[in-house]
């Protein structure tokens, strides 16, 4: 029984991180058909914003000193600004271009950001302790769960619900949903393309910052390459969820979290290092079975 509860919490908190990262990617894809490979690097930048720039192995807190009430909005702001800046500098020039060219450009942008971080902070992973108290275990349902896992699950729910409210109840949310479905038609009705796209990038960047805070608290490590792995999983969640579908991305994020926790728990010991290979194989198989995504409704147009 304990084990089941433990697995559940592991799966839900991992899935929560994946879901948030996938939301960030799905939002941009939905609005402008961009597969944004730089998203993982937004996460890495937010993590490194916590510490003083230097290539020393020991990390000295910079923004990380600030109390949570200041730090959280500040980091969300940094993520949003970074994403908006990348849209303004790079992606805005691709409005009439082929989505494939835009995808390659985002890959290049991610590479630039990653090497920028590498130049400033050096390549060695650094230990960071942000909010270490959150890793103290608490007992829930007979399982010993780090407080952080509970926070992650709650935070994911809060983020997903507030995003849903924003999309459902606000003017910009309505415009984003309309633009995601038919961008040209939305513009013909006076929806400002730049406002909607900038808004989507800001939200996406803020989501990246949220993921960054959770990851760094959980792992205690800042690594220039940390965005790559999470980005890959988030992509996969986006694809499985049906490209551009936000509820689909969330559901698929949780699904991948669950599958990967279950693989970790039940794969034979020898096969465990290959867990991710099984995970990615599962992705290709699910794409083959349902190219429109596992959670895409039948009425929605295929977008890829």
């Amino acid at each position, binding site marked *: 029984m304990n084990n089941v509860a433990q697995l559940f919490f592991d799966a839900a908190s991992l899935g929560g991180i994946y879901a948030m990262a996938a939301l960030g990617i799905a939002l941009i894809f939905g609005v402008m058909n961009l*597969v944004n490979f730089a998203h993982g690097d937004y996460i890495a930048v937010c993590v490194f914003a916590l510490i003083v720039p230097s290539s020393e192995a020991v990390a000295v807190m910079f923004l990380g000193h600030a109390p949570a009430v200041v730090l959280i909005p500040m980091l969300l702001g940094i993520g949003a600004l970074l994403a908006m800046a990348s849209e303004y500098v*790079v992606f805005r*020039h*691709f409005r009439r*271009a*082929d*989505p*494939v*060219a835009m*995808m*390659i*450009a985002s*890959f*290049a*942008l991610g*590479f*630039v950001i990653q*090497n*920028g971080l*590498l*130049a400033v902070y050096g390549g060695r992973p650094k230990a960071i302790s942000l909010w270490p108290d959150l890793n103290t275990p608490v007992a829930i349902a007979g399982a010993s769960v780090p407080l952080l896992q509970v926070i992650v699950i709650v935070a994911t729910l809060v983020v997903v619900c507030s995003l849903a409210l924003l999309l459902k109840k606000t003017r910009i949310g309505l415009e984003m949903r309309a633009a995601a479905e038919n961008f040209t038609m939305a513009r013909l009705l006076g929806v400002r393309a730049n406002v909607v796209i900038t808004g989507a990038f800001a939200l996406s960047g803020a989501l990246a910052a949220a993921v960054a805070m959770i990851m760094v608290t959980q792992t205690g490590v800042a690594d220039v390459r940390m965005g*790559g792995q999470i980005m*890959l999983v988030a*992509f*996969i969640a986006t*694809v499985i969820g049906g*490209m551009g579908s936000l509820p689909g991305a969330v559901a698929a994020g949780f699904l991948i979290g669950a599958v990967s926790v279950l693989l970790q728990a039940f794969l034979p010991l020898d096969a465990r*290092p*290959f*867990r*991710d*290979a099984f995970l*990615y*194989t599962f*992705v*290709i*198989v699910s*794409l*083959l079975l349902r*190219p429109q995504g596992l959670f895409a409704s039948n009425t929605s147009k295929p977008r*890829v």
Partner: protein
Amino acid sequence: MHSTHTQKRLRALSTPVILILILCAFVGLVTLFGDKSLARMAAQTMIRVVFVVGLWIFVGNSGVVSFGHAGYMAIGAYASAWLTLKPQTKALFLPDLWPWLAEAQWPVLPAAIAAGLLTACVALISGAAILRLSGIAASIATFAFLAIVNTIYSNWDGVTGATSSVVGLTRYADQWVTLAWAGAAVLVAAVHANSASGLALRATREDEVAASASGINMYGHRLLSLVISGFFVGVAGALFGHSLGVLNPGSFYLGITFITLAMLVVGGVSSLSGAVTGVLVLSCLIEALVRMERGVEIGDVAFALPSGAQEILIGVVMIIVLIVRPTGLMGGRDFQWPKFGKTT
């Protein structure tokens, strides 16, 4: 009518000849006038030509962007290492190899060809699945493939040495050997592109729907091009290992995926000459930047770029080319003999 058609065919076949001459001139000039490190750079450049031309055979003709080719490269590189390393070395570093492989000690050329063939087989199997998808979904699936290969090769301790490097490979891949393979890749790429299958495939690149409506078996042609592509990318992997003498799974991941895609995009993805031009131009740029990172003296002032500047600048160049000249430097054109006489 007939003669102009023949002339057109001849001109199309002049492309690989010109490209091979350019490659020979490049290697010849570098060997004549450069130092040892430049000769190594020439060998690296030719390996990239083999890789990028291999990549082009699939991406350039099908229009599907692949992020997975670094994975195929890893497969070729390790296959050649398995076949050529001394049995004693393998017993020490790669104890879990299958017995016949552990005892094998092949000459380098058959090993390179075998590495290419193994990669082609993997391309056939993986492509049979991935190419059922199209567009962005297919690209994402190739990315998943890359991650699968990387995960396996980074963890398969007794067979690949995992993240610790495999050392002791014969360093036979100098600029001349790699030039020969680069020439072969260019030739095969040109022949494939002008074959019925290659032409049909390029028709699907222009308009998927119309091509499939006119009865073109897009899946089959894509798969064939991926298999040929896989062969050369596998050979490029083998050459890569035998030029550095060291193998590490980290060499076959995002870094090389990025650089090779950059070369393809900067040169122009829709022509073979674009692929070759991209490799030569970016390789020279990289070499220049690496030297500037080490420090150069202009007059009395010593000047050095910060490390990492090379990658950042290449990324910036790639983005600018994508914005300003989305068709690349070659703009989809090929080098050809000038037209003679009356032209239509």
